[in-house]
């Protein structure tokens, strides 16, 4: 796309350098832990060493004897205010602090309030808790057994560990298609529990000002407005009202979905500040973050595909056990307990499909959040892309040819999927063909055949994913009833400079730059003259926040719509100034001129000045607009990824030799930022494919609870990403844009897993669950008699 604005304006299509980086690269960002207030106290948390246990005693005397320890807060203390339990976003409940028993290792047990964080840590060490161990339920499948211990004994009517059953699609039609199929394949696929591991952990500074009767909370949150409403709804009974609560989400060091939930630490810090009247800081450490905050994935899927023998896919069926830990604390739109998992028909044209998901309680931290994957889209993509490869190999077809045969064709859009989604646009074959050309697919297949002759292991994997982002149309999408619109408010000041505020919150995505570019595109005002602000509920318009790749599709659209309202008013002012009819004015970015007389023009800056100094009689002064944008549909970005792996027969190590990513996110606002998003996303896709997992032993002890064992890949592990794009604009988004922040995370793991299985298929290997560790590959190789 050729930019419509010159580089000095910096509208869509320009790789404008990120405005926010001026402070970040100087170390001048302001994160929660940078907030220092006079008299601030520090909170630290005592956590359970056991995964399931009755608390028989909490002895705080030694901790309270330490000079500087002011209080030890327990569940019993919070129970006095009915704050020991809190609701989750999915209408479940979770503990703030326990009164009776703990439900997972590292659960909050008590909180120490002290004059500095060092004393608070000593206080935590000195609190003595006695536990009576209870039977631990780790495996969600065993949790459903009739004799499994019932975990949620707080729910008096609960007789098992089953949370909910959800299903979607036409069961009868799907069963019929399977019965009539020439070929079916079936595979159990586990997508393991992982963690966002954002570089900044979670925390807050809560400050209840008794004079102003106002609570201000600086908080690591992706959704400050929704959080304020939740606080007002759950703490109204202790006197907090929405206009007396201010949530400030300062600079955020990565969210990825992990900073959507309300964690107990926030609530305890708020309670402590309200009770003491002093500011209270709580910032968790890395191990607390990994061990106690919301996880992602943890889906046990049984997947089936049906096809005709000519290779035409006909039906898909998936049954899933979803391990939610001890509470369903997912952060999905409320009507969708399994998120948007039913995008699992992917890029393919199916006659019929049916999915079932059952949520289950276990003795693990509650969740699960959507880790950079819209809502459960990674799970869906992994299922369909693994199964597509399995079917292709089973039929003896090339996986690329098989995909090209079964893709939804460009002329079928808008396309209604078997599971009811209306895909807005797509051209899947174009993206795959481009990726094949770029990587030299045919040549790689030849190389693979030669290497196989020599006993060398090389694999090629494809993932042609479809995303579903930008929640969402308010008809279907809400969180606790709050419709999932988003907002923008633009104020053009007399000298033509702009402050624009949005209902979202950047956590590194670059909103200060991209939103400014949207406004620059619509108004012709230079990016340098536009200041974007987010995250302060006292100043920004109400919005649902940043997650699920919704900022550009929803708030970005609101920004464009608000700018267009301003342009409409600017036209009226220009007509007045130029003494011309509105219809005779021609807009080009940054100016209105009279049709046929281009020397007669007024710039947007002239018009802005006039809006405050010389506006028409009868018109209100000023040049401002607000838009609350309710998207008519989601956007459906997509892409095709191809990777090449080499496998070391001696050690089982998998090396990603090449990785080509062709993405399509519609019209691009800032190509550099999109490329950065894809690089980061691919690395976050590589991570669970080969490295990351939060596993538990049979006693519920976490196995990946620090960065020693939770294996975040570094630059050393990361291959050189080769990126490219196709452009299929969204037909309904005002700018033709689609979300892109999550595409790569969603699409990459399946490409890598498919490549590994492709390398081992001739040995009889049909599937490997991620993370594909050297130890797993070694075991498969030795089982198949391959060694060095």
């Amino acid at each position, binding site marked *: 796309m050729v930019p419509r604005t010159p580089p000095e304006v910096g509208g869509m299509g320009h790789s404008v350098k990120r405005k926010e980086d001026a402070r970040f690269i100087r170390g001048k960002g302001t994160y929660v832990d940078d907030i220092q207030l006079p008299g601030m106290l520090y909170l630290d948390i005592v956590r359970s060493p056991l995964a399931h246990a009755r608390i028989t005693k909490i002895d705080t005397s030694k901790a309270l004897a330490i000079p500087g320890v002011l209080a030890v807060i327990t569940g019993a203390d919070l129970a006095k205010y009915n704050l020991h339990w809190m609701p989750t976003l999915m209408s479940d409940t979770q503990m703030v602090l326990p009164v009776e028993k703990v439900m997972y290792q590292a659960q909050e047990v008590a909180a120490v309030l002290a004059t500095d*964080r*060092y004393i608070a*840590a*000593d206080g935590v*060490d000195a609190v003595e808790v006695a536990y009576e161990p209870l039977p631990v339920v780790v495996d969600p499948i065993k949790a459903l057994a009739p004799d499994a211990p019932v975990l949620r004994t707080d729910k008096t009517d609960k007789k098992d560990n089953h949370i909910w059953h959800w299903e979607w699609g036409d069961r009868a039609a799907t069963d019929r298609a399977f019965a009539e199929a020439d070929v079916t394949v079936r595979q159990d696929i586990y997508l393991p529990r992982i963690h966002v591991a954002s570089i900044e952990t979670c925390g807050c500074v809560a400050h209840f000002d008794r004079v102003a009767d106002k609570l201000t909370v600086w908080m690591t949150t992706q959704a400050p407005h929704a959080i304020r409403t939740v606080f007002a709804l759950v703490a109204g009974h202790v006197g907090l009202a929405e206009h007396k609560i201010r949530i400030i989400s300062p600079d955020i060091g990565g969210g990825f979905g992990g900073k959507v939930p309300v964690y107990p630490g926030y609530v305890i810090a708020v309670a402590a500040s309200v009770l003491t009247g002093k500011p209270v800081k709580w910032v968790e*450490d*890395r*191990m607390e973050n990994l061990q106690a905050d919301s996880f992602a994935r943890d889906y046990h899927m049984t997947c089936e595909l049906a096809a005709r023998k000519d290779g035409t896919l006909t039906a898909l069926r998936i049954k899933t056990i979803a391990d939610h830990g001890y509470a369903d604390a997912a952060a999905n739109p409320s009507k969708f307990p399994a998120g948007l998992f039913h995008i699992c028909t992917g890029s393919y044209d199916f006659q019929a499909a049916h999915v079932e998901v059952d949520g289950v309680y276990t003795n693990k931290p509650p969740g699960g959040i959507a880790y950079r994957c819209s809502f459960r889209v990674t799970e869906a993509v992994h299922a369909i892309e693994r199964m597509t490869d399995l079917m292709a190999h089973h039929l003896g077809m090339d996986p690329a040819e098989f995909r090209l045969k079964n893709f939804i064709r460009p002329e079928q859009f808008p396309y209604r999927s078997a599971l009811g989604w209306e895909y807005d646009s797509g051209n899947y074959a174009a993206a795959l063909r481009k990726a094949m050309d770029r990587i030299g697919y045919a040549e790689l297949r030849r190389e693979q055949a030669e290497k196989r002759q020599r006993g060398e292991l090389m694999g090629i994997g494809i993932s042609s994913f479809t995303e579903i982002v930008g929640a969402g149309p308010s008809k279907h999408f809400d969180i606790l009833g709050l419709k999932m619109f988003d907002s923008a408010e633009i104020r053009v000041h007399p000298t033509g400079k702009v402050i624009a505020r949005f209902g979202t919150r950047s956590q590194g995505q670059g909103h200060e730059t991209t939103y400014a570019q949207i406004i620059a595109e619509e108004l012709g005002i230079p990016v340098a003259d536009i200041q974007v602000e987010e995250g302060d509920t006292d100043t920004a318009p109400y919005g649902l926040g940043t997650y699920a790749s919704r900022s550009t599709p929803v708030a970005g659209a609101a920004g464009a719509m608000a700018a267009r309202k301003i342009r409409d008013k600017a036209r009226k002012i220009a007509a007045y100034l130029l003494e011309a009819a509105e219809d005779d004015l021609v807009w080009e970015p940054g100016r209105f001129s009279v049709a046929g007389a281009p020397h007669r023009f007024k710039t947007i800056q002239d018009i802005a000045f006039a809006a405050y100094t010389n506006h028409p009689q009868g018109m209100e002064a000023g040049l401002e607009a607000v838009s609350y944008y309710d998207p008519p549909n989601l956007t459906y970005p997509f892409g095709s990824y191809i990777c090449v792996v080499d496998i070391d027969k*001696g*050690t*089982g*190590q998998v090396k990603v030799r090449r990785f080509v990513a062709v993405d399509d996110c519609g019209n691009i606002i800032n190509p550099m930022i999109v490329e950065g998003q894809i690089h980061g996303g691919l690395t976050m896709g590589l991570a669970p494919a080969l*490295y990351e997992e939060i596993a538990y032993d049979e006693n519920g002890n976490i*196995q*990946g609870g620090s960065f*020693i*064992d939770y*294996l*975040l*890949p*570094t630059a*050393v*592990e990361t291959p050189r990403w080769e990126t490219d794009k196709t452009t299929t604009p969204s037909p309904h988004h005002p700018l033709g844009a689609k979300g892109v922040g999550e595409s790569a995370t969603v699409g990459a793991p399946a490409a890598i897993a498919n490549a590994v299985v492709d390398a081992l298929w001739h040995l009889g290997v049909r599937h490997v669950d991620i993370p594909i*560790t*050297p*130890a797993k590959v*070694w*075991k498969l190789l*030795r089982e198949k008699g391959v*060694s*060095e």
Partner: protein
Amino acid sequence: MIPAAFEYHAPASLADAVKLLGQHGDEAKILSGGQSLIPLMKLRLATPRHVVDINGIAGLDYLKEEDGVLRIGALVREADLEDSEFIRARYPLLHDTSRVVADPLVRNLATVCGNLAHADPANDHPAAMLALGAEVVATGPRGERRIAITSFFTGPFATALRGDEVLTEVRVPVPLPRSGGAYLKLERKVGDFATAAVAVQVALDPAGTCVHAGVGLTNAGTVPIKARRAEGFLRGKPLDDATVRRAGELAAEEADPVDDVRGSAAYKRDLVRVLTARALRLAAGRAGAGR
């Protein structure tokens, strides 16, 4: 992630350091690079009441060949080995090892002697020093004594050092003619402890027959392991493919790993087999190149 309270001491001389150890006994720990001690203290897995920082003591950072040995002082950092062209050319095993200890930030501070004194079976230098036949120098109230590396590691995180001794030097014999060494480590990601790693040092006669072999294993048991049977098998043989493979099998038999998050015992044992053979091929190539 905040350590328990402790007293910090910064003696200006070795004698003062030794005296402090004498006064505080088991309650004192030496701080050199601090890259193992400080994380353990932050996790409160180690809670020494006294920390004796030896970084201010002059004259402990030497790295030099003298009287037929390479002397590595107590304050020589991993990065000093890694950045030394002399070490790369003459002690390739040490150079390989220093490059895979943790990550560059750690290596800027972590010391070679500390890597030995901490005696974590997952540390990398113990295997290298076992392969090289090094000895360590312990300085205590009655002066210095030398301890052969083979009798230094007495158990997991336990050494032959007495409570009032500082490990002040490690001494590596200068290589024989036509020597080569190599360290191969499989780690789950860069910076991790080894799933398994193998250190080898060989010397060849002019005809290419192995006249000396040292083989050390990292994280293959509760202590660093010297694979004596593999070493004995190699001596007197040309390092051809069959020989290095057989040596790998013998080293694997000498390994005594356990199942853990890094893999099963069987996997680690097989890694020892594979890595030993590969390291021997590499070392033999290096020895041959210097012929």
